[in-house]
């Protein structure tokens, strides 16, 4: 009796499974002409929460409000957000759920390369739009490119090409790398090393540290022993902050120059100027650059009590650009919007003459900045000298080198 019952149940399950292959997908997307829903997926509480996090949500909301004020659209715009906790499965599940059950049309921020890659795949599967303002990996516009992903603010190539090239040209021709021992660090180190060598510099060595290492002193000792002029930090967030602190303690900064390959103004604020003065790196945004950036950033500061990172400013621009594209295309259908996105020129406080290429890469000017000395800083957050503007055409990987199948060669 028991066996028969179980058999019947299992059989029912198998049959249901076979039958469901013709089951229409529940919750199929209704392309609502009247409502656009934007999802900000970010790290709200972890290592990168100051780079994106609540700031990104605020920036997105500001973009929606500004768009409504300028363009007065007849349709509704809604914002949802979630914390992916730096876990790819949480992020991917959330993306799927948003697309399947909440009618989200576009996602943005999505920092953390692992999460970004996963969300990019889901976005392509469900035919929505991802404008990623937070992640670093160049894979998003090379091997893993899709017709539905835009890589907005920066990538490891731009970081390398900006900081690396400029520093070599200014005389920093011997390098030693301190690298976070995972994919992001490796690729950042490789890209930067390539740039250094291509510009006549030498790479004297590298040392890899575990992610979230608690102590960098031993690695920095090796950096000192190498006698390289430049110590390149191929890491981010807490690791960068730790490395810089330790470098100061060991007097490394007296004889060598630190180049943070991914450093943000929030990191500088956490470390303080006396520790970071003289550091040079690539930035995608600086609040104090011109009147437009100042105006926007002060509004942002009013809400967040911090100045924005390039990711947060990028989210603002991404959302604004998307909404403009939807308005022009007249629909939130992903194919139509993507076509519009790739044909428009982006001009706002974040980017001038920004363009989105076939591979999804948004090309805009980057900046080489140097951190001010304490005495030179006139007000809180006044941290950078902008030493050079790196034009978009030079900052990012040329289309001819792209490994993206979408690019026609």
């Amino acid at each position, binding site marked *: 009796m028991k066996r028969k019952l179980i058999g019947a149940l299992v059989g029912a399950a198998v049959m249901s499974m076979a039958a469901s292959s013709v089951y229409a997908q529940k919750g199929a997307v209704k392309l609502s002409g009247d409502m656009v829903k934007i999802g900000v997926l970010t790290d709200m509480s972890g290592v990168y*929460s100051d780079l994106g996090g609540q700031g990104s949500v605020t920036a997105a909301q500001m973009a929606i409000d500004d768009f409504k004020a300028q363009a007065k659209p007849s349709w509704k715009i809604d914002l949802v957000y979630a914390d992916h906790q730096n876990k790819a499965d949480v992020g991917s599940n959330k993306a799927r759920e948003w697309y399947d059950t909440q009618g989200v049309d576009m996602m943005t921020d999505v920092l953390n390369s692992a999460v970004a890659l996963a969300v990019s795949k889901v976005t392509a599967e469900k035919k929505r739009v991802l404008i990623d303002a937070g992640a670093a990996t160049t894979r998003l516009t090379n091997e893993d490119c899709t017709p539905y992903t835009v890589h907005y603010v920066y990538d490891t190539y731009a970081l390398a090409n900006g900081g690396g090239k400029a520093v070599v040209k200014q005389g920093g021709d011997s390098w030693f790398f301190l690298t976070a021992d995972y994919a992001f660090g490796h690729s950042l180190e490789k890209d930067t090393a390539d740039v250094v060598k291509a510009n006549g510099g030498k790479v004297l060595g590298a040392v890899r540290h575990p992610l979230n290492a608690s102590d960098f002193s031993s690695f920095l000792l*090796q950096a000192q022993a190498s006698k390289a002029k430049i110590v390149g930090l191929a890491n981010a*967030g807490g690791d960068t902050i730790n490395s810089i602190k330790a470098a100061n303690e*060991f*007097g490394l900064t007296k004889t060598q120059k630190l180049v943070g390959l991914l450093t943000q103004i929030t990191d500088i604020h956490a470390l303080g100027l006396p520790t970071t003065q003289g550091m040079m790196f690539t930035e995608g945004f600086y609040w104090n650059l011109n009147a437009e950036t100042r105006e926007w950033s002060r509004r942002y500061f009013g809400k967040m009590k911090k100045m924005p990172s390039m990711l947060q400013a990028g989210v603002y621009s991404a959302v604004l650009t998307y909404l403009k594209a939807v308005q022009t295309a007249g629909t939130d259908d992903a194919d139509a919007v993507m076509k519009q996105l790739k044909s428009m020129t982006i001009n706002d406080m974040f980017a001038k003459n920004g363009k989105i290429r076939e591979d999804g890469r948004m090309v805009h000017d980057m900046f080489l900045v140097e951190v001010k000395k304490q005495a030179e800083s006139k007000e809180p957050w006044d941290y950078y000298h902008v030493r050079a503007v790196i034009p978009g055409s030079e900052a990012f990987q040329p289309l001819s080198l792209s490994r993206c199948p979408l690019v026609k060669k």
Partner: protein
Amino acid sequence: MSEIFGVPIQAFMGQLMLGLVNGSFYAMLSLGLAVIFGMLNIINFAHGALYMMGAMFAWMGLNYFGIGYWWSLLLAPLAVGAAGIVIERSMLQWLYKLDHLYGLLLTFGLALILEGIFRDQYGVSGQPYSIPEEFVGAYNLGFMFLPKYRAWVILASLAVCFATWFFIEKTPLGAYLRAATENPRLTQAFGINVPLMVMLTYGFGVALAGFAGVLAAPAMQVSPLMGSNLIIVVFAVVVIGGMGSILGSIVTGLGLGVIEGMTKVFWPEASATVVFVIMAIVLLVRPAGLFGREK
């Protein structure tokens, strides 16, 4: 420049010194853990979070109350110790009769709570805490560069460790403590207030962690995650040294710090795992630990 094993002597000596610094932290933390385990039979998973609290209190003291480094060295451990006593009285004391594992689980939960609260308040980017005036700069010894603060850390931790060992092994109060560990019933029968001892022991063990936290604040970032990064390694140290052995924890902590430092020179990627490999080997060969006694 002369070399040892193919590595420039400056780098080698530098790593040795750093290994000692790390080892000092391991020693202090594992000392607290060992004392607590010896007395309470509880594996205090919250030890990392309490270490973090010590650093946080120092930071908060400085930024909210203007309390400087030297006062923090005294006050923060006291605050953490007080927190520990509250924890012991309100939660831990109900677990002594149960399987050891419940203590582990409870303190694991506590660690999550403490970290979550601080993370919620302060994010994870870390707060800056500058090195006190007296210790800025370094001694240039020729064959290596010795930051003054790191040297102080080694001295302070050695002093504290030695003081603790002396107290427990050589003083009457320490003797009562050891007696209470071996045989609580009998010790109580002699009129010694065993529950009070237990409570104070836990408080003292975590105060040690708090002290380590204050020492760490200028050297590493003060972040809610600083404890969880460290705690598993410290566990391994305690297991290798032998739980319940004071001397074992100190020597093992310092030794493992040095070994880790050496690994960083010759094979950096393995530096994260070397402690675990050693732990696995020790557990197979001598399960009570290098200095422990089988309980």
